[in-house]
């Protein structure tokens, strides 16, 4: 099975305090720790496990810039067979639809049996996978937390729905699935693994290689635009307990006693 995983390099929100830049048009990106989007890493691991069982290859693709090559290399160190960087000045400022348009152009030239994405990235949009599927006329399923290959033509997948319940679906190949975190346990990637793929050539594809119409992507084509970032006015906000840790602990215990938190 030939599997494509679409990945994105994002600031790690669990490691970073996100602040706005002075102009308010972006977050302060200096000093941020970047990594592969967590859900995308689960998607790569899932692809690797499917290929280990069924045979085939895993390709990881990202739409971005030279800096994003590091996550491609990391995923190759995990075991991905190939990586592709899609990068062109004409692509910058694309909205979700623009990114899907770019990926569609790639997939039309390089067909895959299965396309995986992470369920969502740093913008919380969860949109590109579904858009790509619609453009390709492939079936789509989101929030997938189990994939079983039934035969060369179909998969049995499990989706998370509300309240911890799940639904089992059968889906025809080729298809696009958005993978939920927790679907597997992504393997560890050590420095040694990264060094081993340090010199692997990663092809960069742009407008001309993909044959994508420049006017259909990038900022000019984007109909959904972020105007600015802002920090919302705090709601009532928490009453912060200040002081030495010991004092804070004592204050908290009093509060917990009063509210029935100690039994």
């Amino acid at each position, binding site marked *: 099975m030939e599997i494509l995983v679409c990945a994105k390099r994002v600031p790690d929100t669990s490691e970073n305090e996100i602040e706005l830049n002075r102009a308010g048009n972006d977050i302060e990106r200096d000093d941020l720790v970047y990594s592969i989007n967590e859900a995308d890493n689960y998607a790569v691991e899932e692809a690797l496990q499917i290929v280990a069982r069924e045979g085939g290859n895993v390709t990881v693709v990202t739409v971005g810039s030279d800096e994003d090559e590091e996550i491609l290399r990391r995923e190759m160190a995990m075991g991905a067979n190939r990586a592709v960087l899609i990068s062109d000045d004409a692509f910058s400022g694309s909205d979700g639809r623009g990114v*899907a348009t770019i990926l569609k152009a790639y997939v039309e030239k390089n067909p895959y049996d299965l396309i995986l994405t992470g369920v969502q990235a740093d913008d919380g949009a969860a949109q590109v996978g*579904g858009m790509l599927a619609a*453009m390709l006329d492939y079936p*789509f399923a989101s929030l997938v937390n189990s994939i079983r290959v039934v035969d060369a033509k179909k998969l049995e997948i499990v989706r998370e729905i509300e309240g911890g319940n799940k*639904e089992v679906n059968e*889906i025809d190949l080729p*298809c696009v699935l958005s993978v939920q975190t927790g679907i597997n346990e992504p393997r560890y990637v050590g420095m040694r693994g990264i060094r081993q793929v340090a010199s692997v050539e990663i092809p960069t594809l742009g407008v001309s290689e993909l044959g994508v119409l420049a006017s259909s992507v990038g900022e000019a084509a984007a109909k959904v635009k972020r105007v600015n970032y802002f*920090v919302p006015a705090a709601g009532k906000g928490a009453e912060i307990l200040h002081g030495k840790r010991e004092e804070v602990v004592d204050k908290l215990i009093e509060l917990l006693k009063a509210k029935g938190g*100690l039994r």
Partner: protein
Amino acid sequence: MPRIFAYVLHKNGVADDSAAEMVAAAKKIDPVASPIAITTGFGPEFDTVCSGLCDWYGEVWKIAKEELAYPNAEVVRKALLSVLPQNCILLVAHNHFGIDLSSGLSIKLNAVFVPDVVSIEGLQDVKLKVVRQEFGGQVSAHVACDVSSGAVLNLRPGVFKPTETAPLNGRVVDKSAEVLALPTKRRFVKMIAADIGGVDITKEPVLVSIGRGIQQQDNVAIAQELADAMGAVVSCSRPVVDAKWLEKSRQVGSSGKTVKPKVYLACGMSGSFQHLAGIKGSPFLVAINKNPKAPIFQVADIGIIDDILEFLPELTNHIRESVPSKR
């Protein structure tokens, strides 16, 4: 002004709470909007849903077909494409179904898509301005979109507050005949009900809930010791379950359990909206997190900016000292 539609999910003959929320959202786009509900299903329970929606909507478009008995987004998308007019604005709840349905639908409608909208500032000419959140809710963004060829907006559940109005006594319009065959490449097989697990966190009055800040499996014991000292039970947010440190049945949130404790200690968690969606009944909420920017501090009653790995053991010791029976 474009026509506004709201796709309404339902279950066991009851419309989803988002039905009323979407009316409120439509009024934010256009104060004089009369949004039209559109819903899909099959059978007598579905008929009840449609007539119930007439309280909120002046017009309810009903698509009743056997293939739509279970809400499969791939099938529903095709059904909606047969009846939705060009250039309309469609509202959908941003939940497990909306995530499945809407992005692809926007492509097929040639409409713009804005996911997980938390606020609507208004429509001027063809420019709609809304608010979204990014980076785990740490910052918000104003987003502008051009709705001249239509829009699909996924709305975050629970944020648009329904207004109390007299029932509208709307009418049901049966659109089923406009929908022809619904072939699909994705077929619903069966449901798997959630595990109850050894401990039922939904019935516990005091929860010590841990998030990513617990950092590793061995540290779960720190939270367990505190819970034992308090007479509480340990619950968690999604990353802890993803890492397999606790059972799925301990997870609070939209993809886990809905809890309604009296006291909730949120330890080392950011407070994503998916997590907060699982906390009902306005408990006394204490947040402990070393990141002062964590969104959890916006909703907590009491905030403590500290490292849980150091703070929780100290709290446990003091509780043991102050409550004689726990010595």
